[in-house]
């Protein structure tokens, strides 16, 4: 299975994950600083900033785009409960 590395820069921790893993699955187990609310892409609490590898996450859905817009997300912000990891990336809490 294809693997990818995700680095949580706030805690300086990198995890090797199977491609397709959601960021939420990793960040909670590793203790990264991203805070979660509804966990279903609705509340916007888990907004994270993608420092590198923006294109290595799945495309945001229409609903995620809407929540990002409503939360005044900057260009490389995503919801950690929605984004799936496809390739190497570096993220931190937004």
């Amino acid at each position, binding site marked *: 299975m294809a693997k990818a590395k995700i680095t949580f820069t706030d805690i300086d921790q990198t*995890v090797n994950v199977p491609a397709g893993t959601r960021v939420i699955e990793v960040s*909670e187990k*590793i203790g990264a600083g991203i*805070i979660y609310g509804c966990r279903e892409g609705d*509340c916007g609490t888990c907004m994270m900033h993608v420092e590198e590898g923006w294109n290595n996450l799945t495309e945001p859905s229409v609903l995620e785009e809407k929540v990002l817009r409503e*939360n005044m997300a900057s260009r490389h912000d995503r919801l950690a409960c929605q984004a799936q990891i496809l390739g190497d990336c570096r993220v931190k809490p937004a």
Partner: protein
Amino acid sequence: MTASRSERQTVAQPGEAVEIAPGVHWIGVLDPTLRAFDIILRTANGTTYNAYAVRGRDGVAVIDTVKAGFAEEFFARLESVARYDEIRVIVLNHLEPDHTGALPELMRRAPQAKLYISTRATTMLKALLKPKDDERPFEYETVGTGDEVSLGDRTLRFLHTPFLHWPDTQCTYLVEDGVLFSGDVFGCHHCDSRLFNDRCGDFRFAFDYYYAHIMRPFKTYVMDAIKLIEPLTLKIIAPTHGPILRDRPRRSLTRYRELSSASFSERIDNDERSLIVFYMSAYGNTARMAEAICAGAEEAPGVRVSLYDLEGGELQPFVDLIESADALALGSPTINGDAVKPIWDLLSSLAVIDLKGKLGAAFGSYGWTGEAVRMIEDRLRGLKLRVPVPGVRVKLIPTDEELDACRDFGRALAGAIVSGERGKVIDFADLG
């Protein structure tokens, strides 16, 4: 000129705003009969919902409102210092219902006013106001740290202070007068009509209690907020609950800093990781397992192991211990198909601390069925702890082999604690 003692003895009267600085008024309400706030917080003399009005040359700003049931009292105080058509700005430092209950009516009475909320508050605002399609859309602007709104001769500057204690929390600083409208930060549930911290009864315990239940889970964010607030000239801190802090306001910052440093220093030793083992034992079997687990874990260099019988202590110090530990292991016998109550009491007390990144484990002896271990593991996972080593269960009295298995379990747990060092690349499969 310094205000005389009698002038400073201002007491909140019905229908009258109270001036806290020239042109800045408290227009909040007292709720002295409240005994339980949001179910989880107790208060021995109620609370206040503080709101403020700031008059500038070009209009009036209202900072926060009050709980819905107290709206009329709030409007009466507001009307004593401003007309609705003068209100240009409404600032909501966070959108919790106890501060936004009077908002829809305020917006109806002052339709020209523009709302200023933090960038994270938009979805909450829409959920709160539930605008209908045929209604005039409300005017709002989202603001972040450094953004300002001018009232002519006075400036409101915003500070983004997320998660204190809602995701959308911000503080608002009245630049020219050094007044920080801090929202729930530096607040407490203490109701005293004398309003100011130099006149109220001793509320220090209420201040600490509020912090412990509301802010403590977000300590990192508290420290970030302190960094933003520290450089400001602070003459008054005006929170949304409890006394207005005009006497040595900076002491509140110092106290928040103290409370946000872990109860114990972050690590017992810079190079050591901490594992706390708690157990309950009816016949000494789970206790023997706990001792064997500790013996195994202690073999790992760099792991300090502590062993406690839950029966012998109060919960609160144990919660403090867990907060500064890297891992906790819980041992319980199984009685009537469940773990014993002190274990659940401890686990249900952990919501007030940040558990991110900690490891958890469970073990226990049992007579018939032994469900407790799996149930504790499920709860630990529910609290978002990582459970890297499957729990050990022993039927009744542990044999030497079974105690060896406990030592192995301790070694494996200690190994998982050490391998979680920062900077290392770890595999998702090893996260357990």
